[in-house]
């Protein structure tokens, strides 16, 4: 065996288990979902094996009125989910970006301590952490109690079961996901480049836009993708903090599978989310691939 083929063999051996696992438990179910989304719903749940594009028609507006009815509410919910996910990305970025600069300048020991603190929430159950927000935000919750007793307001504010509450909860949940990639790129930032920019006459603001931001952009892009994708499909946060009032796409899918028992329609909704995510991921791979090729060319 040549060295190259032995290398390939070893690599295959190492990648084997994870490939097999993903094939069986990810690609398999995914294929089932794709097929299901084109099947007709059974009367009492389950599916009927006939080609049935009206699941998508119901969402996108080409449904055969004989079977399904087009309802723009699905697109509306989808757009609202995109909006909430995008705002979550923005909010986590606003919190994490400056923090990353502060932490990157600490001594090694404090750095590690801060990174530990940021991962600390993972040690507690997500549901428990979200219910704490319920206690804080509800009508008789901490915020309203404080504001009422201080006389700033006369009637309790509607804080919970709003879009704002969902964004707050999502931001809280996804901060570590944004922080890690952003921090990685901020820590790598070469400060002599910042000095060079100042030296060449660019003030702090221009130096930020022309030097600091572009050089930390890969981390921001990475963080944005890994926050946006799970935020878009998230159903736990809106279920707890949005209640029945504000629904996101994830809740809709969950409802179709568990409550309405319309599996094909649920699968079709899931396909919609997946396709958007796929487009985003491909875009990211293409963009970073272009950067990678430029780097390879330089070597």
């Amino acid at each position: 065996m040549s060295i190259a083929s032995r290398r390939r063999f070893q690599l295959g051996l190492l990648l084997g288990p994870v490939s097999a696992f993903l094939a069986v438990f990810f690609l398999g179910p995914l294929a089932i979902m794709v097929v299901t989304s084109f099947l007709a719903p059974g009367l009492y749940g389950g599916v009927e094996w006939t080609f049935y594009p009206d699941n998508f028609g119901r969402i996108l507006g080409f449904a055969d009125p004989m079977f399904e009815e087009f309802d723009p509410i699905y697109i509306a919910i989808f757009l609202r989910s995109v909006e909430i996910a995008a705002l979550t990305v923005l909010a986590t970025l606003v919190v994490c970006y400056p923090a990353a600069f502060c932490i990157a300048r600490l001594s090694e020991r404090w750095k590690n301590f801060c990174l530990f603190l940021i991962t600390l929430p993972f040690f507690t159950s997500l549901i428990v952490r979200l219910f704490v927000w319920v206690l804080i935000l509800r009508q008789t919750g901490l915020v309203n109690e404080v504001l009422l007793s201080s006389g700033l307001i006369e009637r309790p504010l509607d804080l919970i079961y709003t879009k704002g509450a969902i964004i707050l909860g999502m931001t809280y949940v996804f901060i570590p996901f944004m922080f890690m990639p952003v921090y990685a790129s901020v820590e790598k930032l070469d400060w002599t480049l910042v000095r060079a920019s100042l030296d060449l006459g660019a003030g702090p603001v221009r130096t930020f836009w022309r030097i600091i931001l572009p050089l930390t952009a890969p981390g921001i892009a990475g963080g944005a993708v890994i926050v946006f994708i799970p935020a878009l499909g998230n159903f736990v946060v809106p279920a707890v903090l949005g209640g029945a009032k504000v629904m996101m796409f994830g809740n809709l899918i969950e409802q179709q599978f568990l409550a309405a028992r319309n599996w094909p329609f649920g699968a079709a909704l899931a396909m919609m989310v997946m396709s958007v995510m796929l487009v985003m991921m491909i875009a990211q791979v293409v963009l970073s691939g272009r950067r990678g090729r430029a780097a390879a060319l330089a070597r």
Partner: protein
Amino acid sequence: MQNSIVRLVEASKAFATPEGGSVTALDRIDLDVRRNEFLTLLGPSGCGKTTLLQAISGFVELDGGSILIDSEDMTDRPPYRRPVNTVFQNYALFPHMTVGENVAYSLEVAGVAKPARREKVASALKMVGLEGMEGRKPRQLSGGQQQRVALARAIIARPKLLLLDEPLSALDKNLRQAMQIELKTLQNELGISFIFVTHDQQEALTMSDRVAVLSGGRIQQLDTPRAIYDHPVNTFVATFIGASNLFEGTLDGDRLMTSDGMAIRHQPCERKISTKATALIRPEQFFLAEDNAPFPTIEVDLDQIVFVGSTFELFGRTAEGRKVVAEVPANRRSLVGAIEQSRKARLAYDPSAVHLIGERGGA
């Protein structure tokens, strides 16, 4: 005074150490840099030379004293508002910009229109021998080319002063020597003052109009390379620049008597204030004595004879056990052959070439 482009008055800076103490980086430094001058700040690491440079560029805030550039007080001005540009040690090229964008950066910041910018970039790149490289990325260039881009970027806006922070230290020896000459030429062409920081004494001697030798946050000596080499004011400067043989002792007429009984002849001079002094003889001032030569000599046992191309370096020891180093031209092979046999040499010197260093620094 219009002849000075930079003036430092009692510039002081101390840094806190992690242990809670403080280190003096600049100890009330006074310095005048002349217009159109190539000034080198030379010293061992930690002598304050980089701090001094950064105080001029604005990255280090002084604890006391002031800095004037072209008669204007710059002490409290941020770096981006000083008419000074820097070539950084690791070049600090912006990796996400092309060579052209890098070089144009200061013009872009200053709001120069695009066509004028393009023209100036082309001529700056031509000046450093990188015509037509505008479209490349810094990563695609060699170390020497990156160095030139950094240089072009720093001179394009015609600063009143160019600061160079050990810019050649990452280059290999041949390239470094070529760049030394190019830098000097460039400085003449541009007609602006260069302040160059290095720990390499050879580099300092080669390029500079004047050299400032720093140690312990103070300027030990500021003078032309020749004056610094031939007439160092103290033993620190004497040993830091070039190789040296130092003989401490007491003056006695035209002799200096060392404590171990050696007598070093020197030219009698008027300023004989102190009786204690140190005599400096550079290795190349020694020559191999013919028997009847009318010069004083030092007899040594040779430990080593090293051939370095144009010269031989002789490492010897006097009867008193004092180490002496001498450098003799390699074209005197027959003489060297003789001493190689005997392992002994009589090193002669001209008393007028002996430099006396006074006890308190005064020469």
